[in-house]
């Protein structure tokens, strides 16, 4: 198999790990890190496909994803900080004022 195929498989594994982390982790910061892992898995697959097909676009998309992820991280950390201030906890199980 080519190098790129391994990269695609690796990105699928990373994405899966991120999704599992999102579902099973209890600390908000860790959940947030899982999302970042998923986004970076996407970046890896964009680069791998871009190389596989000899198209430059895939690498350009990565820049878009990085920029958007940075903006999201800035807003996300602010929200998490505010929650931590008001509730004195970062455990997602404790954030339960609005129940299903």
């Amino acid at each position, binding site marked *: 198999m080519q190098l790129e195929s391994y990269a*695609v498989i690796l*990105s699928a594994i990373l*994405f899966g790990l*991120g*999704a599992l982390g*999102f579902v099973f982790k209890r600390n*908000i910061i860790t*959940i*947030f890190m899982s*999302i970042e892992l*998923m*986004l970076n*898995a*996407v970046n890896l*697959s*964009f680069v*791998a*496909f*871009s190389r*596989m*097909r000899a*198209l430059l*676009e*895939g690498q350009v*998309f990565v820049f*878009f*994803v990085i920029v*958007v992820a940075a*903006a*999201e991280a800035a*807003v*996300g950390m*602010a*929200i*998490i900080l*505010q*929650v931590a201030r*008001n*509730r004195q906890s970062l455990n997602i199980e404790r*954030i339960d*004022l*609005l129940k*299903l």
Partner: protein
Amino acid sequence: MQAGANLTGMEDVLRLSPILMACGFGILIMLVDPFVPRARRSLTANLGVVGALASLACVFVSAQHMGRSYSGLPYTSLIQVDDLSIFMFFAVFSFAFLAMLGSLDYLEREGLQHGEYYALVLFATAGMAVMACAQELVTAFVGLEVSSISSYILAGYRRNAPKSNESALKYFLLGSFATAFFLYGAALIFGGAGSTQLEAIREIILHPNPLRQKESDLLVLGSALVLVGLSFKVATAPFQFWTPDVYEGAPTPVTGLFASGPKAAAFAILVRVFYSAFGSYRDTWFWAIWASAALTMFMGNLAALVQTNVKRMLAYSSIAHAGYILVAFAANSQLGIAAVLFYILAYALVKLGAFTLLGHLGDTGERRVEIQDLAGLGRTHPFAALCMSLYLLSLMGLPITAGFLGKLYILKAALDAQNIYLTSLAIMLAVNSVISAYYYLRVVRVMYFSEPAADWSPAPVPYPVAAVLLFTALPTVYLGLFPDAVRVMVLRSASTLR
């Protein structure tokens, strides 16, 4: 040739003028805000409302310059302004205008009157507009994120209220999770088709390369992931669980915005991706949409039955309505797409009005949003009660309201397909309308037949809120009686899609 190229560049600017205008006003507000003295905070608020109106006016400019963006710099055919885009521009900017108008007094009362609120609404709306006219998946992603990131902040805008924090946190975590799915889907589609342009994807599917069998697997998997990501955004089962929490915790006028604009824009991109680009994969995604529509309608309506909080009840009803729209979408015909668009407009207007009114009646800190708090509204505030009843009856689908015709078009689209599975969906829709009548009518009964609370009565409706009520109630009745103009518009949007 050079002059011609420059001219086309200018064309693009005019074509996208509503989006550029909204962003321009947003930036202007952010720049002006620090220099405005505290006592004159209403200046930036007015600037926001003017910005929304200016963008709305630019939609008419944009309508004069329809077409694909020039395939050179700077917009490299990423965006297409067609009838669907114009319809959506008009819708989302009107929603933004109404939401801002409805927020003026709310923010004043809660002591949250800051310029950035209006800037964020404008940025969010610009993102929705980008989503509605995107012709390429990464562009759609950027639009989606511009609108989502602004929405996360707006959801948590009551910074010191724990419920608002929680709403923002849940929206942020689940929204980003959904975005990651959408993006991974886009990456796989890029791998399968070698492009993320919707038109190129369509071509590849229609004329597959026989040497590359694996491509179609990647495309199917990618489209499934994109569907998951968008299902989160439009809040359809099984990805709807965030909706009630986010809607309940967010400031009420913001909830009105969430229930209208982002949903409309997400449905627009859903139509573009699955009706246009992946149209030939219909057999593959039909069952996913079928199951999702059925599940969404029942889960939304059954959960709404037991709610005592009006905000939460309306959130569940939003879920149910997304299910109704999916029924029309599943029909996969021009008539179906037209029904989707008509219903979005009818539904969003009503939700905006209802949430705006609720934002006013909720009183400081949103303490009074239970159904019982509306008791006797018919006697103390006849106008407000009349509007609220109209909204609820339109959501229920009573004749002479827009909701009735919306449901009629959906049923017609589903039955015209002569397909047993679509017919079953249509029957489920009818059953659900009956279920929903119970909880809508309960609110109407409380408003008119219960005694008002002795110790408390809501303040009179301020002028901006009354204006929003008029701007939403009148079109609801107008669309219910004379739907022709909008009907022609949505049919044309649907027919120019392919």
